[in-house]
């Protein structure tokens, strides 16, 4: 396995993780309606990225599993959603949400850096397959990172200055 395939594999793992993490955050913060809906939409992008990485991976001798068959956060999530509704009346979940968004932001940023590495490799090796893949996917990863940062920016003043 060479450095390129290691990177493909790492990014594949990263997109799988981000899809699950977005859905888990959507579930946990049902009472934050915009976060719930947008996180669910953005999970779809990671799902697609994962599938495309698996497809492309074949050409590099990789057998990647693709997106998770059932990316939903599982049985515990139901309990978490109930808990979200129960604590939806308290201010502290605001801080929990900021921390969840921070984790999402770092995961998306990590994926973005890997896309950057692959894009650079594609340019250097004049590999049209790799370039097509990164051109299609990287912008959406950047949008995921931008979104998480935006929500953090907009919610922090209220969460951190309210008593």
């Amino acid at each position, binding site marked *: 396995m060479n450095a390129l395939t290691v990177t493909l594999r790492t990014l594949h793992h990263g997109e799988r993780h981000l899809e699950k993490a977005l859905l888990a955050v959507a579930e946990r913060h049902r009472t934050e309606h915009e976060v719930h*809906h947008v996180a669910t939409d953005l999970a779809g992008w990671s799902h697609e990225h994962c599938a495309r990485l698996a497809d492309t991976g074949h050409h590099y001798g990789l057998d990647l599993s693709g997106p998770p068959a059932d990316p939903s956060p599982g049985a515990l999530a139901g309990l978490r959603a109930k808990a979200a509704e129960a604590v939806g009346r308290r201010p502290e979940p605001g801080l929990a949400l900021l921390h969840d968004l921070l984790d999402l932001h770092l995961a998306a940023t990590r994926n973005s850096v890997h896309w950057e590495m692959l894009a650079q490799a594609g340019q250097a090796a004049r590999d049209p397959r790799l370039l097509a893949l990164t051109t299609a996917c990287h912008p959406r990863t950047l949008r995921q990172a*931008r979104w998480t940062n935006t929500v953090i920016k907009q919610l922090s003043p209220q969460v951190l200055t309210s008593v």
Partner: protein
Amino acid sequence: MTTEADRIADPWGERTPYDRGTPWPARTDRHLAPGLTEADVERWVQTASVLHSNGDAMDIAVRHGRVVGVRGRAGDRVNRGRLGPKDLYGWQANNSPDRLTRPLVRRNGRLVPSDWDTAMDRIVSRTRHLLDERGPGSIGFYTSGQLFLEEYYTLAVLARAGIGTNHLDGNTRLCTSTAAEALKESFGCDGQPGSYEDIDHADALALFGHNMAETQTVLWARVLDRLAGGDPPALVCVDPRTTPVARRATVHLAPRPGTNVALMNALLHEIIRRGWTDPSYIDAHTVGYAELAARVERCTPRWASRICDVPAPGIERAAEILGTAERLTSTVLQGFYQSHQATAAAVQVNNLHLIRGMLGRPGRGLLQMNGQPSAENTRECGADGNLPGFRNWQNDEQVAQLAEVWNVTPDRIPHYAPPTHAMQMFRYAEQGTLRMLWISGTNPAVSLPELARIRSILGQERLFVVVQDLFETETAQLADVVLPAATWGEKTGTLTNADRTVHLSDKAVDPPGEARPDLDIFLDFAARMDFRDKDGGPLIGWHDPESAFAAWQRCSAGRPCDYTGLSYERLHGGTGIQWPCTAGAPDGTSRLYTDGFPFAHPDTCESYGKDLVTGAPDEPVEYRSLNPDGKAVVKAAEYLPPHEDVSPDFPLQLITGRTVHHFHTRTKTGRAPELNAAAPDVWAEMSGAEAAALGLHAGDLVEVGTRRGAVRARLRITPMRDGVVFVPFHYGYWDTPAGHRPAADGAGRAANEGTITDWDPVSKQPLFKTCAARVTPVEPGTGTERHRTAHTARTARSAR
């Protein structure tokens, strides 16, 4: 011609046909209290409508100190004398015996009559306490689309620079924020590009999700007069229901709710594929076209027909009309603004006009419509959306400019994030970080989605709720302090309609009892709070409507909504005037963007744009590199499936909307006898086929339920697409025994009991037209009920 016909039966009145390119003839509509003639009228006082966004100019008839009727102003550019049913009859609400005449305060759990000093003291002491203990973020203001410019501006100054809170929004969030956002995305700045006169010149009209016949009856009368005259325009209608507009359309497309972006992308695909674009306009005036062309390349009519459930040939035919018109005028309203991917869909209508070069010339008009009478003022004064004067919160120079106008330091004006939108304020209140909400002129306990949640938020002990209104609305019943407000005809101010026409509305009579103009209430609060500018002078130096207007003029100077050429004197007597109105354009400006897009420039723009999926704002540096010279931005969007789709348990789509007889939550129109009698109670509408499949008949009492709640209504069978149920949103509980909520047996009357808490991430406008529902029988209708459901003009075509 002066007419006083029964305008419940005929909302649009007699035809006055006219040919393309000729002026719209005048027709003066009038309605006086029974038994009175014009000879009995002591005074006529100039005003304009506050019951819809069209801005119809009229005079109020006064006799013995009371409003006794209205008459359209034939000389006004907007309506040429015509009035709709809501204006002809709605004024009677002013004289309603249940007007609030004294402040109310909550004592031992009950609202009891009080006096102004006690009520204002309570508000001021709570405000001071919260500022000391919790800071400005604990205080929010939720205002209206029905006050006057002078009132919004005063509220914006006192909230932003006085209190220092970022939490100020209007209920215009529910009706017009997508219009504003779509304009900002495409043109860098809010501001209606077109003019109503474009209807006189168009050879094709396209109404996207806009049931103009019911929401703006006078503008629809203008269209009907064009259709009856020489060289009539082709008419394209996009609406899931067979509205009066759809029945007159050359092509009617009835897409599945929530799929507007797919439909628009297919229309744009066809226009590009058939070569109907204007390449020289695109080159000279826009950026981003290549991305749009790539985005819609595969969005064929056949592709869209599967998503939207609209026949592909219909899409092709509509594209041909839109693509070959020489003078295309489009309007957009709630069918787009309150549906899934609201801003993305509305922006595609802008794109249609940009790639065809259909802007800035007679008949080449784009009208992103408003829902409420003074929604435009809420937007421009910064009581909704951005900072006053369409200023950009991300641009430090523009913030500094505003600080200079207010004589405060820039850090006094919160601009670390976009102003907080209404749904987020309610979320903060739910969480307990917002502890005081001052609601002026609106009724969220009926108009917001998922009402059980809204009632429980407003009913919290820890939230101090102030309501300023004419009546004891559902929301007022949940308040801690209720302030009685004067209304239209009882106070002076200006208001601006959907095509930027500014009208003066003069005081005709005194308000009842101790009711006071909203402006006076805000000024009183500011004085009691003793807000100061940076030199120790009063932050708010004005004292009446005209001095408030002058203050606003200074704030508007140099911005797109420039009012500096206007004055109360100029607005008296003649016609309303369209902003910008300046020394250089003293008669106002009929069309924006006749020569480029000056407010799309990175230095002057109101917004740098947002991600159409996530709503995340772009950064200044990105905008500058994308659009260094300030051109229009052609912004592509991908279709995404709706967030809540149908399921076996909830197999239908619920859409809510308006009826011609009522405005908002019926606080006024429900108190006008003719309007109330025409539509006294809530109903549900379905197609004949859908009802038959469920074994339902017209007149049956049904329950329209969603995952969140249910409403009980009599069923009407009307032509519309299958799979959809429509419920008007106007009805609440003030005229029921329970007062502000459903009766104990749980039968809701408000459509919003069941609507979803979801909003467009870009405009933050709640989505009232995309949620899953089921319809179940409660009890069969009787013969009379079956007859009753068919008694209005609009449902006279009922299947039974």
